[in-house]
C-alpha cells in the first residue's frame, strides 16, 4: 500500500461528508428544520470567523477555506434540538468560534473542542430550549417561532428514562416507542466507520470511548438492571456515536499519543455514563469531552511513547 | 474561655514547632539572587552599564541600585529575562548605555602594533597575549567583544570584526518558515 497525503481542508471535508448519513436520519425524523439549523450555523460561523480574522489582521481566505469553522458549525447544529429557535444556534456558534477557537489563537491552538464549548454554553444558559426535542416530524416554522412549540415537543429516551426513574418506575416497565435515536446513531456509526477506513481518524478514541461507555454502563446494569439502563440502550441513544467518531476525535483538543488517545477516549466514555446516570443533565457528551480536554496536556506528557534507542 | 485560649495556644505552639522543623529539615539551598542575575547577563564585561563588569552590575540590580535595562549586549531579550526573574515590569533598553551590536571580536593589526601592552591591562577577560615591545594577539575564543581595548590603544591598531556565520554555525531563520 502506498502512503497518500491528504490536506487539512480535505480532511475537514471528508469528515463533513461522513456526517451526511446521520444528518439524513435526523431529517427523516425531525424534518428539514435540521438543514435550516445547519445552514444558519455555517453562515454564522463563516461570518464570525472572517470578522475575527480581520480584527486579528490575518489573511482571511486561507483560514476560512480550511473547513474547520464549517465543521464546528455543522457539529453544533446537529447536536442541538432541531426545533430550537434561530438565535440559539447563532449564539452557540458565535460562542464556539469566537470564544472557543479564535480567542485562543485560531485553529490548532484551542484547548477545548469549540463545538462542545458552544453546546455547553447553550445548555447552561438556555436549558429549556436546549432540551426540547421534536417528538415527531415538524416543519421549519418553529425555528423562527412562528408555530406553537409546546404542543409538539417531547422528551428524548434519555430524558424520559431519567424522569420516570425519578418518579419511581423501574427500567423494565418503560417502553420506548421512539426509535429515531437508534437510526440517527446508526447513521453516524456508518459515517464513523467510513472515516476509520479512510484513516482520517485513528481507531483509538472511538473504540476506547465505546468501551468505556459499555463497561461503565455494563457494571451498573449488572448491579441493578431495574434502575440502570443497559449498555445497548446507552449505545444507541443520545449523541453516543456522534461523540465517539466526530466529537471526541477532534484532533486539536484530543490527546495525540497512542496510549493517551486510549485513556482519553475511555475516560470520556466513563464520564458520559456517570453524568447520564447520576448527573442532572440527560446527556453528557459536551461535559465529558470538555472535562477530558482539560487533562490532555497532562495525559500527553505522561504517555510519551518510547523513543527509538531509549 | 480558658479552654479555648489554651487549646489555641497549644495548637499554635505545636504547629509552630512543626513549621520550624520543616523550615530546617526541608531547607532549599536557593541560588542566591546575584548568581541568578549574573547567569542572565551576557558576561561581556564591557562596563557599558556603568559598573566595572557583569557581576558588579548583578550585585547592583540585586540591591536595587541599578535598573534592569542598562545592558546593551544582552539586548531587549536580556532585559525581558531579568524582568521575568525579578518579577517586575519589563523596561525598554536604555539607549544611554549604548545599542545592541552583533557579536564581534577584536583583531590586532600586526603591522601597526607596537607592543605597549595597554590592551592587555584593559582586557577584562585576559584575552590578549603578548608582552612588552612584542606584537600582541587576541585569543579569538576568549574575546567578548567589549570594546574596552579600543580607547587605550595608542596606535589604533585594534579592529572590531563582526563574527560571520559559517556553514557549521548557520541558524536558519524560523520567521521565514511561518507563513501563518
Amino acid at each position, binding site marked *: 500500500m*502506498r*502512503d497518500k*497525503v*491528504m*490536506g*487539512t481542508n*480535505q*480532511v475537514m471535508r471528508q469528515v463533513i461528508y461522513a456526517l451526511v448519513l446521520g444528518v439524513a436520519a435526523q431529517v427523516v425524523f425531525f424534518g428539514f428544520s435540521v438543514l435550516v439549523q445547519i445552514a444558519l450555523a455555517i453562515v454564522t460561523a463563516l461570518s464570525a470567523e472572517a470578522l475575527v480574522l480581520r480584527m486579528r489582521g490575518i489573511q482571511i481566505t*486561507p*483560514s476560512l477555506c*480550511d473547513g*474547520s469553522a464549517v465543521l464546528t458549525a455543522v457539529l453544533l447544529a446537529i447536536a442541538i434540538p432541531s426545533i430550537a429557535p434561530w438565535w440559539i444556534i447563532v449564539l452557540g456558534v458565535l460562542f464556539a468560534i469566537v470564544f472557543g477557537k479564535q480567542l485562543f489563537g*485560531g*485553529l*490548532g*491552538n484551542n484547548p477545548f473542542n469549540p463545538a462542545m464549548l458552544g453546546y455547553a454554553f447553550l445548555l447552561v444558559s438556555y436549558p429549556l430550549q436546549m432540551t426540547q426535542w421534536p417528538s415527531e416530524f415538524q416543519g421549519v416554522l418553529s425555528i423562527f417561532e412562528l408555530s406553537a412549540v409546546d404542543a409538539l415537543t417531547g422528551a428524548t429516551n434519555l430524558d424520559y428514562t431519567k424522569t420516570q426513574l425519578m418518579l419511581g418506575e423501574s427500567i423494565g416497565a418503560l417502553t420506548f416507542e421512539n426509535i429515531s435515536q437508534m437510526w440517527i446513531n446508526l447513521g453516524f456509526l456508518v459515517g464513523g466507520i467510513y472515516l476509520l477506513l479512510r484513516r482520517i481518524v*485513528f481507531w483509538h478514541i472511538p473504540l476506547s470511548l465505546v468501551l468505556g461507555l459499555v463497561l461503565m454502563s455494563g457494571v451498573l446494569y449488572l448491579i441493578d438492571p431495574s434502575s440502570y439502563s443497559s449498555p445497548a440502550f446507552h449505545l444507541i441513544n443520545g449523541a453516543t456515536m456522534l461523540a465517539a467518531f466526530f466529537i471526541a476525535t477532534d*484532533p*486539536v483538543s*484530543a490527546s*495525540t*499519543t*497512542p496510549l493517551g*488517545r486510549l485513556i482519553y477516549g475511555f475516560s470520556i466514555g466513563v464520564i458520559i455514563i456517570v453524568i447520564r446516570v447520576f448527573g442532572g443533565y440527560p446527556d453528557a457528551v459536551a461535559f465529558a469531552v470538555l472535562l477530558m480536554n482539560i487533562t490532555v496536556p497532562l495525559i*500527553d506528557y505522561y504517555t*510519551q*511513547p*518510547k*523513543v*527509538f*534507542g*531509549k | 474561655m480558658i479552654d479555648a485560649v489554651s487549646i489555641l495556644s497549644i495548637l499554635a505552639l505545636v504547629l509552630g514547632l512543626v513549621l520550624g522543623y520543616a523550615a530546617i529539615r526541608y531547607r532549599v539551598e536557593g541560588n542566591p539572587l546575584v548568581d541568578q542575575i*549574573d547567569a542572565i547577563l*551576557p*558576561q*561581556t*564585561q564591557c562596563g557599558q552599564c556603568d559598573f566595572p*563588569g*557583569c*557581576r558588579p552590575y548583578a550585585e547592583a540590580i540585586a540591591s536595587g541600585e541599578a535598573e534592569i535595562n542598562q545592558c546593551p549586549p544582552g539586548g531587549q531579550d536580556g532585559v525581558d529575562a531579568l524582568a521575568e526573574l525579578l518579577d517586575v515590569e519589563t523596561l525598554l533598553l536604555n539607549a544611554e548605555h549604548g545599542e545592541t551590536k552583533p557579536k564581534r571580536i577584536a583583531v590586532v593589526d600586526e603591522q601597526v602594533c607596537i607592543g605597549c601592552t595597554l590592551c592587555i591591562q584593559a582586557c*577584562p*577577560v*585576559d*584575552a590578549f597575549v603578548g608582552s612588552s615591545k612584542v606584537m600582541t594577539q587576541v585569543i579569538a*575564543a*576568549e574575546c*567578548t567583544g567589549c570594546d574596552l581595548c579600543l580607547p587605550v590603544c595608542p596606535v589604533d591598531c585594534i579592529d572590531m570584526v563582526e563574527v560571520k*556565520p*559559517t*556553514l557549521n*554555525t*548557520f*541558524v*536558519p*531563520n*524560523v520567521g521565514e*518558515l*511561518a*507563513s*501563518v
Partner: protein
Amino acid sequence: MSKFTFKGGLVLENPFPAKEIDLIRIPLPDKVVLPMQQRIGEQAKPCVSVGEHVLTGQVIATIDDDRCAPVHASISGTVVAIDNQVMAHQSGLKALCVTIESDGEDEWIDNSVACTENYDFCTPDTIYNKIRLSGIVGMGGAGFPTHTKVQFAEGCHTLIVNATECEPGIMCDDALMQAYPTKVIRGVEVLLHICGAEKAIIAIEDDKKESIKLLKKFCKNERITIEAIPTKYTSGAEKILVKSLLGIEIPSGGYASDVGVLCQNVGTLVAIFDAVVENRPLISRVVTVTGSAIKEPKNLQVRLGASYDYVLGFADIDPGENDIRMAGMMMGVDLKGTDYSISKNTNCIFVNKPIEKAAAQECIRCGMCNTVCPMELLPQQLYWYSKSSNIEKALDYNLLDCIECGCCSHVCPSNIPLVDYYQFAKALNRQQTKEKVQTDNARERFEFREFRLERNKQERAEMMEAKKKALKEKMAKDKVQKEAIAAAQERVNAAKTAKELEDAR
C-alpha cells in the same frame, strides 16, 4: 529477507523512474571548483597556490585533524583561484574553494605504492592510511570522513554495506552496482580485511532486482551476504538499517560503532576499491540527474568540482525556469540557481518544473506525523516547541534523536515544513550551547582576573609592608651600629685625649 523491521517510515514510489539504469561517463569539464569544506567538520587547508600547475589526483588540500578529508585535483591544469564561493547549502553562504582550469590532458600523478592487487599482504594500517590519504568521505550524503568512521568502529563484529538507496528518485548507487558489481564485492573484502569484522551484509531495497542479481552472481565470499530489505523509505538511515538487519537498537545519542557495527555506503566501498587497488583517490562520483523537467533521468559519472550547469548539459532538460534541488526529494535542499559544483556528497540533482508550494496551515495535532516517524518521536510536540524556540522543552522531547528524514513533513495535512523547524531548533541549540560555554568561560576569566588584581594588590601591599619593616629594622640596626661606632669613637677619642694628656704631662 530480513526478519526485523522498523516502525513508521513511508512507502514511496520513485516519481521519475528511468527506463534503463546506465552509468554514463561524461567528458572532462573545463573547470572545476573544489570546496575545502565537506558538509560537517573542519575545513581542509589548501597546499597549492594560484598559478600552480597540478596533475589529476594530486593533493591540493591537507588536513590537520581527522574530522575532515584531504582534497585532490580532479583534473590536470592550472590553479586559477583560491577564494570563497557559494556553497550548495540552504544558507547560501560562501566557503573556501580551489578552482582549477583544465589543460585538457588529464595527466595523472603517480600515486602508486606497494599494495595494490594483493591487499591481503598489506597490514590494515597501511590500507587505512591509504584510505585516509585518498580523501574518501561517506558518499551517501553525510560526507563524514571514512577513515575516521573506520577508526571509531575498531573491533566491530559486522560490516553493513548500505546499498538501500531509499530516497525515491536517486539511482546513483543502483547504477554503480550494476556497472561495477565486482568492485563493490572487492571493496567489501578490502574493508573487511582492515576493520576486522567477521561478516559483511550488503543491504539492498528489494525493488533493485538487477543489482541484487548481479551482486549475488559475483559474490563468492561466504563472509558476505546480500540481503534484500523491503522498500520503505528511511530504511537506509543508519540506525534504522542496523535495526532492520540485526534487530539491534542503537542507543539514543550513540552511533553504529557503539554496538559493534560499521556502516558504509556502497559508493564509499567502490571509492575504497579505487583508492586501495587502483591507486585513484576520490576525484569522481556518480550523480543522478532527475526531476519533472527532465525527459529521461540519467546517472552520470562526473569529475568532482564540475559545475551543475555543465552536468545538467548532458541531461534533456525542458527549457525555462526550473527549480533545483540537491540530494533527495525527502532530505535534499532547495537551491537558488545552478552556480554550484559537484562535491563529494552530491548524489543527486533534481530539476523540477516550478510548482506552487501549498501554504502552510496551522498544526491540527492530527498525529499523522507520529505514525510515520521512524525514530518514534512526537513530531507535533517538537514542532510546537521548535517554533517557539523553546529549546529546553524540544530537547526534552528528544529533538536530537530526529534524523531529519522528512517523513513528517511529507504526510503533514497542513503542509508544515516540520523538518525545517527541527533544523532551526538544532542549529539554535548548537549556538546556545556554544554561547553558554563562552559566557561561562568569560565569567570565570573575569572573576579570575578580579581575583588576580586583588591578589596583586595585596601582594604589593604585603611587599611594601615587608620593605618598610626591613627598612625600619635596618635603620634600627644602623642606629645601634652608629651608636656602637660613636661609642667606640668616643672611647678612642677619650683614650686619645687621655694619651695626649699623659703625653703632655
